[in-house]
């Protein structure tokens, strides 16, 4: 059974008042409410929690954590769940835009040390297309790009770090515990 | 009286406890049948604030290997502040005891409430273990005899810890 370290998130203290759900800007879009996710984790129902798509809707705005009367780090729980599922992407989650984006993002900074946005957009859209064959999505921001270029807001070659290899090494050291380096 | 020296060393521990928290904590340990080493002898005082630290010196004189001072938790003192007075005086007293050559590591301070039978059990367990590890407190053993003008032989010192001695 999956176990994620949740002590420092104080999940055990949750008494289900629902203030996290009440304040969540995207709760309405979630298949399970934040308080329900915390409850699942509290009772060890990690599988069910990861199976939910709630964490992919979460915008990490920290409102839940900030207002929690028991100082439960609800946003932290969402992070943990994302991290966990990132380690073993199920087909559905692999197709999830957010995770595709985040992997593309990390790949990108791993390569350059800093973000190369144009390349990010490219890789990300390609990934989404490959996984989901969403043609419209592919061109969603296509209209945006030229206007960005014309405003000098897109650099075709992003600046990158001189000592670039160090970034790669940092990544390896952090991920070595995990066998999911492929993911990034 | 002429007992052979025992193989295993059993430390003698004297506990000065307050009547309202730690003594009741020890009672609770009893009611809950929480077993702990039999080395401790409890002296009941109204409050740890009552403890004159010469008492500790005395305890070592008569052959104690470790001493426990335990009262109510901060803020819970039956007499509002006695436990703090004890703590504060202990700070001043420590150095004095050290100059007296007393190994202050042999003196333990804790706070045990009337509800903490379990904690009492643990504390006594730990203190006994440390005392065993530290070995007999030769430096002060049998001093009392010396004062009453007797020869202080190691045996005399050790005998104070022999059960038969009582009879």
């Amino acid at each position, binding site marked *: 059974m999956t176990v994620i370290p949740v002590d420092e998130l104080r999940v055990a203290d949750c008494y289900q008042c629902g203030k996290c759900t009440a304040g969540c*800007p*995207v709760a309405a*879009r979630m298949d399970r409410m934040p308080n329900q996710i915390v409850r699942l984790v509290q009772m060890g129902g990690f599988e069910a929690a990861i199976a939910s798509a709630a964490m*992919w*809707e979460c*915008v*990490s*705005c*920290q*409102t839940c*954590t*900030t207002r929690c009367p028991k100082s439960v780090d609800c*946003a932290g729980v969402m*992070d943990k769940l*994302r*991290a966990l599922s*990132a380690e073993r992407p199920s087909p559905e989650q692999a197709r999830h*835009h*957010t995770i*595709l*984006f*985040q*992997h593309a*993002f*990390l790949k990108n*900074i791993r390569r350059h*040390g*800093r*973000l*190369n*946005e144009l390349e*990010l*957009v490219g890789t*990300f859209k390609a990934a989404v297309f490959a996984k989901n064959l969403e043609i419209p999505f592919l061109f*969603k921001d296509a*209209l*945006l790009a030229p*206007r*960005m270029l014309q*405003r*000098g*807001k*897109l*650099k075709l070659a*992003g*600046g990158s*770090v*001189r*000592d670039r290899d*160090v*970034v790669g*090494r*940092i*990544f390896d*050291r*952090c*991920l070595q*515990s995990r066998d999911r380096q492929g*993911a*990034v | 009286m002429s007992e052979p020296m025992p193989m295993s060393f059993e430390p003698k521990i004297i506990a000065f406890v307050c009547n309202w928290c730690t003594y009741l904590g020890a009672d609770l340990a009893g009611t809950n049948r929480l077993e702990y080493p039999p080395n401790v002898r409890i002296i009941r005082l109204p409050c740890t604030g009552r403890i004159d630290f010469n008492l500790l010196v005395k305890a070592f004189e008569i052959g104690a290997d470790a001493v426990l001072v335990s009262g109510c938790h901060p803020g819970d003192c039956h007499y509002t502040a006695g436990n703090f007075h004890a703590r504060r005086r202990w700070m001043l007293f420590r150095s004095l005891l050290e100059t007296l050559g007393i190994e202050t590591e042999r003196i333990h301070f804790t706070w045990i409430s009337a509800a903490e039978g379990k904690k009492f059990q643990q504390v006594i367990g730990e203190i006994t273990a440390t005392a065993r590890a530290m070995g007999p407190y030769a430096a002060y053993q049998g001093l009392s005899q010396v004062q009453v003008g007797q020869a202080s032989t190691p045996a005399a010192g050790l005998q104070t810890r022999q059960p038969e001695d009582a009879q």
Partner: protein
Amino acid sequence: MELGYYPGCALHGTSNDYEDSVRACLDALGVGLKEVNDWICCGATAAHSINHKLSIALPARNLALAEREGFGEILAPCPMCSMELLKASDLVKSDAALRQEMGRIVELDFEGRTSVLNLIQVFQKVGLDTIKAAVKSPLEGLKAACYYGCLLTRPPETLRFDDCERPSSMEAVIAALGGTAVEWNYKTECCGAGMTLANTDIVLDLSHKILTNAAAHGANCVVVACPMCHVNLDMKQADIERRTAVRHGMTIYYLSDLVGRALGLSDHTLGIDRHFVYGG
């Protein structure tokens, strides 16, 4: 006054207008910025979503670099960056073992001596009275809705900045510039932040609400101190219109834009003319 400067990826990319604005107006205030040499990305949401250790290591590397260059304080105009930097700095300060581990991982030992400032804090350091005195053209007629979003104040125990429920530090700056700040309700609501590309619909809905509320309370512009907020509120207005059939036409300023303007700098210098919604 000279400060260390951690621009972060956004300011070197899409939000280069923010960087120009920050540099220009701080220069005008006599605050020199020295870029942290060879800084790397802070990892943003992606890192702490996917690997906890990485989410500490990336900012830790930057803290180490800054410390090596002897910066006591660094400005991170992007709240995401400053939050990540602060979080990492708190962690390594409180946990020596972790600090050593991080030293090993990022190949640079450090104490965590460098403290991190956001843009508003820099203005506060300069002093609002000083700024007030330096104002050349007061911002009359400006009705600003100050928008803090999430990461300027949340999580409070990490940011330790302003009141996370009723923040007022930007309003104070606006007042110093002779403008007025409107009372409104979405100061600290989220705009969708990192979801800009991944989950565009969320962003459009949330940003739409924010712009609507600002307008409803009589604001003629929204002031931000965050590149992501700016992207979502400014760049996405066309998409919002396409999705909701509401045209907001709301100008979105960086706080530094307005300070710069009041100090008499041109829109071009401040990069304001590069905003998507630009009424001049």
